[in-house]
C-alpha cells in the first residue's frame, strides 16, 4: 500500500508492505503493529523494536492519535488523490452547457462564494431537469444564464474565479 499521511496538514509519503506471518512492515524492513491495551499495559504502536504508548481513535476519514501528551489528526490519502490534488489549477473557470436546453432556475448571484458540489444553475433538456454544480471552490464571477432562456450546446452558463469576493 502506497500513499500519503496527512498529519496536521502536512503530507508524509508512506509505503507499507506485507511482512512475515501476516503482519506488515515498512520498506526499510522494520515491522509495524498496533498493540491493543492489555491488562495494565496501555494501547500503543510498535515500530521495529521500539514501542510507543499511544491512544488511537478512528472517526470517518480521520484517525486521532494521542502521543506524548499531544493529539494529532491523521488522514490517509491514496497516491492517486494526492497527485490529483497537486495537478489542479489548470481548470478554466467557465462552466459550459453539455447539451442544448433551457434554464429553469439560477441559484447564485455574481460575488457569491461557492463550494465544490454546490448547485448553481438548473437546466431542462430532453425533458430532464439537471442541476449544474460548481466543479470546485470559488467565487461566482458572472452568471450568463437567465430563467426561461434557451441555449445551445457549449454555451457558457456561469463563470467563477478563485479567491475572495
Amino acid at each position, binding site marked *: 500500500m502506497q500513499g500519503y499521511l496527512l498529519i496536521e496538514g502536512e503530507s508524509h509519503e508512506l509505503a507499507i508492505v506485507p511482512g512475515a506471518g501476516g503482519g506488515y512492515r515498512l520498506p526499510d524492513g522494520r515491522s509495524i503493529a498496533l498493540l491493543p491495551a492489555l491488562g495494565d499495559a496501555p494501547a500503543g504502536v510498535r515500530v521495529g523494536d521500539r514501542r510507543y504508548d499511544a491512544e488511537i481513535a478512528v472517526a470517518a476519514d480521520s484517525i486521532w492519535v494521542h502521543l506524548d501528551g499531544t493529539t494529532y489528526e491523521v488522514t490517509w490519502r491514496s497516491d492517486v488523490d494526492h497527485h490529483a490534488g497537486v495537478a489542479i489549477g489548470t481548470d478554466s473557470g467557465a462552466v459550459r452547457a453539455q447539451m442544448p436546453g433551457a434554464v429553469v432556475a439560477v441559484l447564485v448571484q455574481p460575488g457569491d462564494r461557492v463550494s465544490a458540489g454546490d448547485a448553481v444553475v438548473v437546466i431542462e*433538456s430532453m425533458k430532464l*431537469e439537471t442541476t449544474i454544480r460548481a466543479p470546485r471552490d470559488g467565487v461566482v464571477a458572472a452568471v450568463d444564464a437567465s430563467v426561461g432562456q434557451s441555449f445551445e450546446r457549449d454555451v457558457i452558463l456561469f463563470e467563477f474565479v478563485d479567491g475572495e469576493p
Partner: protein
Amino acid sequence: MRPIRSALKTDTAEFRANAAHNRGLTDQLRERQRAARQDRPQRDLDRLARQDKLFLRDRLARLLDPGTPFLELSTLAANLAYDGEVPSGGQLTGIGMVMGKEVLIRADDASVKGGAWYPHSVKKIVRALDIAIENRLPVIHLCDSAGGFLPLQSQFFPDRYHAGRIFRNQAILSKMGVPQVAVVLGHCTAGGAYIPALSDYSVIVRGTGAIFLGGPPLVKAATGEVVSVEELGGADMHTTISGVADIAASSERHALALARETIGALSPGRKTAIDRAEPEPPAYDPAELYGIIPVDARVQFDMRECLARIVDGSRFFEYQPQFGPTLICGYARIWGFKVGILANNGVLFSESALKGAHFIQLCDKDRTPLVFLQNITGFMVGRDYERQGITKDGAKMIMAVAGASVPKFTVNANASFGAGTYGMAGRAFDSRFLFSWPQAQVAVMGAEQAAGVLSDIKIRQLEREGRTLSDAEAQAIRAPVIRDYEAQSSAWYATSELWDDGILDPVDTRNALGLCISAALNAPIPETPHYGVFRM
C-alpha cells in the same frame, strides 16, 4: 480501487422529502408482497386443511436449508391482471440453497384457483426454467396444479413461449445435464403430468399425489371405465408398476425430506472462477438511497451516489471519467465479485454510447460480468447529433450489449425509455436477471410525449371535422391518455407482466445482485468473445 467520495447532503429538505416518498413506496411494496404471499380466500385455506396439505410457504420453508437466503422472483406477477385474483400468477419461483447447493425452486400454489395455470403462470414458469438453463441451476418442482385454466387456453397453449415451452425447457435442461427433481404433492393432470415425467428424479405423496393424462371423470366420459384416483395414477401404482415416479412418500414432510436427500446425492457442478476478493460492506449507508432517488422522476441525480451505497467499500475504478460523462463506466466489486458497471448519468450522446460499447468489450475480454443501472430517457436528438451519427453510435452500443458473452445483470433504477432501454440491456437483451426499483418506469417514450402524440392525432381528427377545441377540451383528451400511459409504464405493471424478475427495495439491491452473480457462475462463460459488425 479508491472509494467514491459522496457529496450527498442528508440534512436537506430535498433529502427528507425524497426519503419519505421512497420509504412510502417501499412500504407499499412490502405490503403488496405480503398480500401476494399470504392473503387467500378462507375457503381455499379450509380446502387445503381438509386435504391435509401444507400452505405453499410452509412447503418452501421445509425445503430450504435453514437460515439461508431465498431470492424470490416475480412475487408480484399478475398483480394487475385477473382483478388481482391470481396473486404471484399462482406460482412461486426463486433461487435458494438446498443441501448447500444453489437451486431454482418452481412451485404451484394450490391455494390460488387450485393451482390452475393462467397465461401469467405459464409465462412465469417458462421464465424460471429459462433462468435454470442460462445459469445451469438444478430445479425442484413442487407440483400441485389443477391444470391449465381452460377459458384462457388460447393465451397460454399454442404459441412458441406458451405451455409447450415448459416441457421443451425441461428436456433441454436434462440434455445439458442439469438435474430436476419433481415433488408431486397434488394432482398432475394432462400436460402437468409431463413435469414429473420429464424430471430426472421424482417423489410422490401417497393419498394426495397423483399423475395421469386424464383424471377419473375424463376416463369415465371417454371410455366408460370407472376407476379411483389411487388406482389410475396414485403413488404406489406409479412407483411399483408404471415407473412414472421414483419414490412414494408417506406425507408431504416425508416427500420434501426425500427431495432434499435427492439434491444432496447429486454431484455438485463446478462454478466458474472469476476475480473475487474478500467482501466489504459499502462505506456509505444503503438506506441513504431513499434520499437520493428524486420524488419527481424528471429530476436528474448522480448515479455515483447510488453506486457508493451498493458496491463493496464504495470503491469504484472509473473508466474515462471525463469522456461521455452521461454514462458512468467502471469496475467495482459486489460481495467480492468483480463487475463492470454501466450507469446512466443523463441522456446518451455519441461519446457516451461509444464509451459504453468500448467498456463492454473490455469487460468481456476480462471475463468480468456486467451490471447495468438504468436511468435513461433516451439518446440525444437534434440536427448536430444526427449529423455526428448518433444512430450508428447507439447501434454500436446495442451490438456490444447483445454480443457480450459474460453474464449481464440489469436494474431499472428510475427510468428506461426507448432505444436507451436497448443500449442498457433491457429485457430483450438476455440479462441473466432484471429488477426494477419501485418508482421506476419503462416505456417506448415518456408519458407526456406519448400523450402529446396520441392526443394531437385525435385533436387534428376533430379539427378536420370542422371543430375547434378549447384548451379545457384538449386537456380532457390528454388527461386520460397520460393516466393510462403512466399506469402501463409503472414498475407495478412491468412486474405484473413479467417484464422484469421482480421489484427490489433499493437497499436490497446489493444482496440481490450478489446472489444472482453467484447463481450465474454455475454456468461457464463462453471462451472467446465475438461480436457482429460495428458500424464505424
